[in-house]
């Protein structure tokens, strides 16, 4: 049975990347615990708008865990306390009556705050532009079985491809490193024969772009894989290291 809970919400307000931010606090009363976290924030915003106040800004889009648009650092966890789930898949039944719920933006130098908890994650798009693709001569699609791919490789590549690029890995990392994202995006192509011709070029281009955008150096703390809503594994990072080192030694 659904029940209602009341709690204290502390949420981050910030007007722009260079402005000083602060927490606003609000008592949320009688929120049904089958409300999703984002719906709870919608309730907050309705209350704020009705009072003539400025609404709280946060990112969201599909609300079904596949677009990678929602973010929010909730009670010390990117995407909140649930594992293997995004913020939009988080429900209020995870919280108790009387809790203090702290909502912060992704904090990283590479993710400047646009407004409140909305941050600019365009850096990930730039990394993808640097090499996260395959160059393919278009034309008639060839027969699907012309290139045989072992089932394990196809499955592993698919697991890597489930990374939605939300940036939780960067938010969780004490070093602000984007290695879990970059390694998943390198792996999804490196594991398949279609991705091999450009594998060396891709690893080098994406790593150097990551470097240029000011992400930190991975120290293998595993915080990223613990918080990743898509359960990406740091074995991807080992694969990226391998691809990059091999590419550099072959130069």
């Amino acid at each position, binding site marked *: 049975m659904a029940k209602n809970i009341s709690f204290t919400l502390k949420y981050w307000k910030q007007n722009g990347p260079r402005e000083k931010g602060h927490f606003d606090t609000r008592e949320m009363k009688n929120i049904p615990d089958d409300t999703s976290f984002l719906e709870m924030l919608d309730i907050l915003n309705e209350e704020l708008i009705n009072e003539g106040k400025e609404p709280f800004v946060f990112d969201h889009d599909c609300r079904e865990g596949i677009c990678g648009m929602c973010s929010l650092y909730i009670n*010390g*966890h990117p995407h909140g306390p649930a594992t293997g789930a995004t913020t939009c898949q988080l429900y209020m039944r995870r919280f108790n009556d009387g809790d203090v719920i*702290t909502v*912060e933006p992704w904090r990283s130098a590479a993710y400047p705050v646009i407004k409140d908890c909305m941050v600019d994650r365009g850096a990930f798009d730039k990394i993808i532009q640097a090499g996260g693709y395959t160059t393919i001569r278009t034309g008639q699609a060839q027969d699907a079985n012309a290139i045989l791919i072992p089932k394990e490789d196809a499955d592993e590549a698919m697991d890597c491809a489930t990374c939605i690029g939300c940036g939780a890995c960067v938010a969780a990392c004490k070093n602000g490193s984007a290695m879990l994202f970059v390694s998943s995006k390198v792996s999804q192509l490196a594991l398949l024969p279609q991705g091999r011709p450009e594998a060396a070029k891709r690893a080098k281009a994406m790593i150097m772009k990551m470097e240029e955008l000011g992400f930190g150096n991975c*120290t*293998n703390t595993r915080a990223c894989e*613990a918080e990743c809503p898509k359960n990406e594994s740091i074995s991807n990072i080992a694969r990226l*290291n*391998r691809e990059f080192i091999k590419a550099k030694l072959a130069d």
Partner: protein
Amino acid sequence: MWLCNSSIGRKVVMSVTGIALILFLTFHMSMNVVALISGDAYNMICKFLGANWYALVATLGLAALTVAHIVYAFLLTMQNRRARGNERYAVTVKPAKVEWASQNMLVLGIIVVLGILLHLFNFWYNMMFAEVAHISVPHDPADGFAYIKDTFACPVYVVLYIVWLVAIWFHLSHGFWSAMHTLGWNGKIWFNRWRTIGLVYTSLLMLGFLVVVLAFAFGVAPSLCCAA
């Protein structure tokens, strides 16, 4: 040069120097254990590794490895702090699978460096350095056995050395598999293998050092009663 201007390259430097230092520790531990068995045999090793050209060259190489490891550690940490941004999280939770050591490698490293300085003052200064610089020291520079007895007769040094060994254990408990991971020799299966190998190896290594410290602290080393 990719070893300086790419993050993986810088980490490769950390990994390779780290592994080299683990090999050095292995070598060092093997020699220490000799002191348990025979003072004379230990002093033979001390003479062999005294102020000879090959020992001096190896010492310089070792110093270079250590300095590279430390310089890169500070460089990487500075870059990582900058990448994290100015604003810190108000609430942080360490996920269960995150090892404490993995997030505190620099702090552990600083404790290790302080231990190294103490160790150089206790032994190296009185042995190799004294021989090269012709300083007069309490015992013959090649009489390493006498320095072991002197140092571990003092309980303060014993405690400091144990703290030092524990810090190295924590540092390597993360450093060992992390080095393999950075060099790309890891995956879903090898992850647990490397972690286990690393923990067992590090524990044996540190136990080897610890046994010598404790044996001399309590005066129960076999070499104390039989040989001398």
